[in-house]
């Protein structure tokens, strides 16, 4: 049977999603996502030629405000929930030199 998604694709999507999956999860998700995607393809029964995609129900457009400085959160409150910070910046491990990259 034509599988909608295989384990290799699941690993690729996990990388794109920035999720580290165990082998057991890869296996479980492959089956479950395959079943969901197969169901979702039901949409192909509908002819949508010439139908506009509807991303949003309201006729939304960009909202602008006057370019005036307003009060904002402030460094202390913005950093208050950070797992690691130095009072001024968020702290993360080194990005260059020995980082594994994407």
């Amino acid at each position, binding site marked *: 049977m034509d599988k909608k998604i295989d384990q290799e694709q699941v690993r690729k999507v996990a990388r794109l999603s920035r*999720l580290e999956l165990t082998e057991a999860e890869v296996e479980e998700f492959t089956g479950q996502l395959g079943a969901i995607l197969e169901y979702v393809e039901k949409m192909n029964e509908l002819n949508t030629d010439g139908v506009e995609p509807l991303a949003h129900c309201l006729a939304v457009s960009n909202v602008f405000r006057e370019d005036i400085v307003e009060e904002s959160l402030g460094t202390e409150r913005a950093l208050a929930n950070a797992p690691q910070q130095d009072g001024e910046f968020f702290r993360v491990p080194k990005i260059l030199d020995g*980082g594994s990259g994407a």
Partner: protein
Amino acid sequence: MEQLSAKALRDRIAAGETSSVEATEAILSRIEDVDPALGAYISTHREMAMERAADVDRRVKAGEPVGELAGVPVAVKDNMCTTFGATTCASAILKDFHSPYNATVVEKLLAADAVIVGKTNMDEFAMGSSTENSALRRTVNPWDGARVPGGSSGGSAAAVASRLCYAALGSDTGGSIRQPASFCGVVGLKPTYGRVSRFGLVAYGSSLDQIGPITRSVADAALMMNVIAGRDAADSTSVDETIAPVCDYLEKLAIPVEGLKIGVVSEFNAGADEPVREALGEAIGVYEGLGAEVVEIGMPRLDYAIAAYYVIATAEASSNLARYDGVHYGHRSERARDYVKVYTKSRAEALGKEVKRRIMLGTYALSSGYYDAYYLKALKVRNLIRGDFTEAFRKCDCIMMPVAPTTAFGIGEKVDDPLTMYLSDIYTIAANLAGVPAISIPCGFDGNRLPIGLQIISPAFTEDRLLAIARMFERQTDWHKAEPTVSGGH
């Protein structure tokens, strides 16, 4: 006192006939008795609640004006930001997150002098239909402890049904207010998209999410709408009141809709279990007794709503949840040795399975090579579904259908089969895709004495009429007065 409506309690407190301190103390001690077994709340805030209650009582005594919810104990779902306590979204990744600001709806509740007693349990990030996806605790159905309360606003619905607050807020992306309201035998309203500000609501599917009330009566839902509805400069998708004015929903409630035309999609409704179909038929019969006319309508694309929804909602979720990166706030893995691992390990350790599944599904649907086939296709199907509603509302004032195909299902019954869980959302999802308001009101019980809900859907920005239509039924029936036997210390 617990039997009073939110409105009646407010009026008694404002008149000095009863005190908010007394009402709040009664609710808090009931929570202490009942909630260890029920699991409706993630956190309660006794000290703050009692202080606010005392302040309302003091102002009443001093003859100062008090708000529309003066002294009334209420609850909010834990995906709405509060500066008090944590805002967890029932996720391990946010379990210690303290918001620097309040959601607009929280500000509005406080401005109306409500007493927020706690924050309620939910499916993690509002992803689920049973509240079983909470990483923090389990909520059971107040009518049967072996069954789910529905989801994702299961904690709010269980709390309202069990009299652990007088009213609550939930959020509804694909049925998350209406389905738990139905499973727990209370009233749940999903307003029109854009009617209530989403500022400070932790985002799941931004084009679908909407906050609304869960209450014991239609009148209390109208009262809550009076407090939370309206334009908010902080949410640019909340609608300008010159385009769609808000009104006094409570005042409009008393006016029955003359010559009501009810749209019914018989073929679609046939998919529900027999007790649900029977209750729906009897409910429609009540309206016919009031002079309403039933119109058979065709909505051929409704059947595709679940498919479109699980592409659109997950695509939006995959983008919204990218912010949980272990850097700015939330859990960071202690095992991460480099920058990318901060992301991948933090997310792997602290996000639940259903959340991972939906992020993966959405990422896939948006990824190169699949975008047109899944995401773009789903947006076109969404447009067709909205077209079905537009067409239907030319022939009728409202549409009536089940809320869910079944009554509350057993705990554990569907957790290992996500697709089956998704399919249980069949009746609620379309209103989110089309952005229209929909309400669930109690309309009966099945053979196991589990509540059944009636869903009524109306055109965009007609919550006033929707509530008035719901009230017509409530006035004729006693279903909303039924109470579960919740075991506690009393």
